[in-house]
């Protein structure tokens, strides 16, 4: 995406300014709920960036990715809540959450090294469910996770004396908690996207691409396939864990319900629809798939305003329309909305 163009070009500066004022505009316009939705979209962007490392870069289908998000979220919840009355500082909790998730990534990667495609997908799906079921049941023999009730009253994210959930005054403006979280999440997404892009174009990224294309030929070219697969799993998981910790602090509450299979599938959809292998694409996918279902929710108000009566309850058809949109995108943009150059070439060849 125009890496050669200066970041100080008018268009880039315009985009940057828009990102800076977006939470203010949303708060003033559609309302505070939308700031929250955009915050969630940014969290999902982090997940999409992480899963893209596994699926898009290295070509390993992972259907249990949300388990790493859960790992990060729960570790944060345990270390910063009333559950054990621990209140660790962010500089300790956040890296630990990311590292534990990375370790879980290795644990998932190691036994699945020989598996590919469907078989890998099934094992990763099982892994995701195992983590969720553990979280659901670890209230006995001693109460670690509080079971299905989840952990509530989690400390908000605090950097020094700055508590993100409390409103603050800046130069005559009052920023709400969700607005402040927006800037934190935006900075994280930008950082992760930058790192992922650097990785993609590094020696490591080339090795991943080779493994994705032909594992045997990659091994024959001198690429240590095993190590690079493990690295992909673990780096992808690290992103998930990091996002999970931020989510726990932002939400103030975690429960196993938030980490079910549907969530894994959703993040995979974001990666595939946005454009596997393209970091900007998967971020776009994440934002679209977070915002679209919420936007469809507003159909009810729209009908009420125009017809004075709700003919079609949005809650009934929301997921139907959403599914239809997914099918249309896949039919007309099979390589994703913003495909990576390699994907685009592949599909151009296949389509007349």
């Amino acid at each position, binding site marked *: 995406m125009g890496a050669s163009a200066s970041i100080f070009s008018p268009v880039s500066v315009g985009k940057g300014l828009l990102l800076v004022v977006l939470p203010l505009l949303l708060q003033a316009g559609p309302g505070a709920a939308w700031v929250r939705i955009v915050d969630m979209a940014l969290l999902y962007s982090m997940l999409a960036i992480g899963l893209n490392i596994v699926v898009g870069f290295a070509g390993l289908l992972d259907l249990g990715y949300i388990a790493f998000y859960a790992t990060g979220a729960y570790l944060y919840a345990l270390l910063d809540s009333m559950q054990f009355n621990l209140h660790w500082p962010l500089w300790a909790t956040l890296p630990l959450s990311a590292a534990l998730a990375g370790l879980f990534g290795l644990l998932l990667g190691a036994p699945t090294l020989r598996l590919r495609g469907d078989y890998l997908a099934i094992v990763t799906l099982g892994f995701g469910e195992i983590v969720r079921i553990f979280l659901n049941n670890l209230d006995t023999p001693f109460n670690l996770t509080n079971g299905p009730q989840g952990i509530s009253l989690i400390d908000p994210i605090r950097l020094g004396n700055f508590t993100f959930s409390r409103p603050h005054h800046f130069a005559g403006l009052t920023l709400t908690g969700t607005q402040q979280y927006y800037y934190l999440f935006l900075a994280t997404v930008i950082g992760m996207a930058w790192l992922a892009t650097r990785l993609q174009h590094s020696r490591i990224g080339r090795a991943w691409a080779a493994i994705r*294309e*032909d594992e045997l030929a990659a*091994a024959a*070219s*001198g690429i240590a396939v095993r190590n690079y697969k493990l690295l992909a799993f673990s780096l992808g998981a690290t992103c998930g864990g990091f996002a999970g910790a931020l989510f726990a602090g932002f939400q103030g509450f975690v429960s196993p319900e938030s980490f079910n299979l549907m969530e894994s599938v959703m993040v995979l959809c974001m990666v595939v629809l946005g454009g596997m292998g393209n970091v900007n694409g998967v971020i776009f996918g994440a934002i679209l798939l977070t915002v679209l279902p919420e936007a469809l929710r507003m159909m009810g108000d729209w009908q009420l305003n125009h017809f004075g009566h709700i003919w079609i309850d949005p809650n009934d058809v929301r997921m139907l329309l959403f599914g239809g949109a997914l099918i249309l995108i896949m039919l007309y943009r099979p390589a994703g909305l913003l495909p990576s150059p390699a994907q685009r*070439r592949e599909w151009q060849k296949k389509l007349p």
Partner: protein
Amino acid sequence: MTGLALHNLRIRYGHLEAVQGVDLHVDDGERVCLIGANGAGKTTLLKAIAGLLPVHAGQIHFNGHSLLRRAPHDILRHGIALVPEGRGMFNQLSVAENLSLGAYTRTDPLAVRQEINHIYDTWPRLGERRHQPAGQLSGGEQQLLSIQRALLSRPRLLLLDEPTMGLAPLMTEAVFASLDMAHRNGVSILLVEQNARLALAHSDRAAIMETGRIFITGASRALIDDPTVQAAYLGL
């Protein structure tokens, strides 16, 4: 001890023994071809040498070093490169990206660049298509690319698994020309091939393999004139 030496090599898939005690050597600078019917164990043998399959029993030595239980990338560093069956293209990646992946283990980017340019000069079809995805090349072009990619690791020994399978006669000639060129540059060759006549014509020694065993070895010239070989493999 220079070159490759296999001693009583046995390779199993579960209970099935695909290679049943093979002795074979490829001396430094030698070209050896391995011919035989489908299912004789030829591909299995090459994969085991390249470290892609575990060896059940026996020995593999290369220039005095044992290659048993080594990872494929380690074997490549010892100077053995495999051109896999079916070419092993990185289809979505460009010709240039495929070539640079062949030099993955090397640490002298300037020399690699020069060698890649030399490949483009020698094989203009690859040069013209350097930015196209490798999957869009013709079968013959892919095979040439696969061979050149393997040579970029600067191997001492090149293993080739049926490089002319499914190619037009003209491309088959080009493939053998590229092998002759590599050989002149000092690369030893172990070639698995279905086209026995061409394989014998382009090798110093030949081994004939059937059901996991080598049962004839000899100078390629002598085997071309051997009546049993003629009857079984050359269709004369």
